[in-house]
């Protein structure tokens, strides 16, 4: 959690242009809905999310546990259980992943779009060597490549993720590597197909604090190098500040605020974002995370009004009756709050 201190200062000191409007979108998600259908009711984990990520751009998605961040990433890459209902559009370089055949979609996986998971301890197959797992991935995405070429590519990838003596590491099993090394291998695998978009689900959470910072830096570097769009889900606002051009805040399956990293993290316009930042700052000060009071609503039955109303200090009567509208608070910065651009934004 050391990376969370001084979020605002660091964000402000960072000068990063808002280039999303000029570059072509490599990933465009429109009105994404993900509903886990079960016998005991349906869970709407993602409830109409839209965003675009340009090539080379980074979107960080923050939000409490259970807000649907992982469900969103899984829906995009397509590894949810078969019974899951998914609606909307997921456009990769203009082509809708949801309208593709199963086969084409599988082919896109890993090659056009890839994913890095939270826990490198369990993300790699324990009984295959690093070499086999990497070569297998490379061969999947480069048809007809020879074993020798695939192997030298694997070494190249390990070099790219800054693993020392990559030739020797190829022979290792995951259990023989440290957590940081494993996450580097996972990242190497994610870029093996030169994807246009990389999804990362809390890629540093499971790592040692000292290793976290290095992996974040590596991520930034790699993502620039392969010029891919990156969607990174994180609890850590410091990670978001360091990596992202844009930050989206997710609550109960919806984005409730979206804007440039600087805008969202320094001048939040949604009470929930404020709460998240407060919790993070306090966590940094007394080293004890303090959550926003109350709990998120059940995703099985969402309230009629603003989903945050039961926990919101600013809530007024109107908040309970109808869903909060989207309000622009600045250029490329909006908030799903009745009071946005009003007194609610105190910063």
């Amino acid at each position: 959690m050391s990376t969370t201190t001084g979020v605002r200062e660091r964000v402000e000191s960072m000068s990063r242009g808002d280039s999303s409007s000029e570059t072509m979108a490599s990933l465009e998600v429109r009105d994404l809905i993900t509903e886990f259908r079960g016998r005991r009711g349906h869970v709407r984990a993602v409830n109409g999310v839209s965003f675009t990520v340009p090539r080379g751009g980074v979107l960080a998605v923050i939000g409490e546990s259970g807000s649907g961040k992982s469900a969103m990433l899984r829906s995009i890459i397509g590894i949810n259980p078969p019974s899951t209902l998914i609606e909307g559009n997921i456009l990769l370089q203009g082509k809708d992943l949801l309208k593709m055949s199963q086969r084409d979609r599988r082919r896109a996986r890993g090659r056009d779009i890839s994913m890095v998971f939270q826990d490198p301890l369990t993300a790699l197959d324990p009984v295959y060597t690093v070499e086999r797992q990497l070569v297998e991935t490379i061969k999947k995405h480069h048809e007809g490549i020879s074993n020798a070429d695939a192997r030298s590519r694997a070494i190249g990838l390990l070099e790219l993720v800054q693993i020392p003596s990559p030739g020797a590491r190829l022979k290792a099993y995951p259990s023989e590597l440290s957590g940081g090394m494993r996450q580097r291998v996972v990242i190497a695998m994610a870029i093996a197909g030169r994807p246009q978009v990389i999804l990362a689900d809390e890629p540093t959470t499971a790592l040692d604090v000292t290793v976290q910072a290095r992996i974040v830096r590596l991520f930034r570097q790699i993502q620039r190098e392969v010029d891919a769009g990156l969607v990174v889900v994180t609890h850590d606002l410091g990670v978001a500040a360091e990596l992202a051009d844009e930050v989206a805040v997710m609550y109960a399956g919806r984005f409730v605020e979206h804007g440039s990293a600087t805008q969202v993290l320094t001048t939040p316009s949604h009470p929930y974002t404020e709460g998240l930042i407060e919790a993070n700052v306090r966590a940094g000060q007394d080293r004890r995370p303090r959550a926003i009071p109350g709990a998120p609503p059940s995703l099985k039955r969402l309230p009629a009004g603003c989903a945050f109303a039961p926990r919101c200090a600013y809530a007024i009567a109107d908040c309970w009756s109808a869903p909060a509208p989207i309000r622009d608070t600045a250029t490329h910065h909006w908030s799903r709050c009745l009071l946005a651009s009003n007194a609610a934004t105190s910063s």
Partner: protein
Amino acid sequence: MLRLAARRVGLAVPILVGVSIIVFLLMTILPGNAEAGLVPEDATPAQRAAIRDSLGLNDPLPVRYVAWLVEALRGDLGYSLQRRREVADLLVQAWGNTFVLAAVSAVLGITLGLLLGYVAGTRRGTLVDRVVSIVSLAGLSVPSFFVAIILLSIFAGGLKMFPSGGATFDEGPIAAIRSLVLPVASGSLITMAITARVTRAGIVDVLSADFVETLRAKGLSELEVRTHVLRNAISPVLTTSGVQIGALLGGSVLVETIFRWPGMGQLLYTAISSRDLVVVQGATLVIALTFVIINLMVDILQAAVDPRVRGAVA
């Protein structure tokens, strides 16, 4: 890998020595001693002592053990007075018969078990899964001798489709296969059931592991994903298969007796009932040896497929 194999073989040696000591003591401690058949009923104590002396039975135990071991290693396990045959000859013949039965039962049971377990594990919660679970539970709970009796009364008694017993290898391949069907069916059932259960459990377990998502996310086909899953789930299957093969090679006393199959189980059974201790001793030694060797092979195989096992040993 080779060093690990050598280490495992080295570990097996003390086990084998221990087994041989126990088997040796078995004969010397139990009543109805080895000389019993050689001494006339009306012998005087002096005559008895003389015979014991000439057989070396009055030497200290360690001396007798070493003498016995040397003979055993040279393939001489004694002479069965009851059967009027060399024990080694009896064992070779019985073990050969049991081996045929065990090998066919093991291959069939393990293959079917793997297949059923795989199908059930990858289709968890479906009708197929439930049917396999019930069948394998039944296979585990119904004793194989009971299955043997049922099969015998239906297919050999009522329908007369298969012979009711005996290994008839010298009457041509068809007769041999026919004579194998019923004993194999009852012998392989438990193996199949255990293998199916362990395979299913392993596959269900591995399928929920995080790395399976990584495999899917990197674009592997379902078949490729399942190859990974099977490789991960195979270790416990190997362990139980080893135990099953060991048990089958030991000879199932009940199944072999019911089908009059002249294997280790039947040999041991008749030897015990006629207090033929040299044969009991020899058979016990061979069965123990079989178990040790099977376990050794399983250990080495396991290390070959699973680096986690290798790490734990090395």
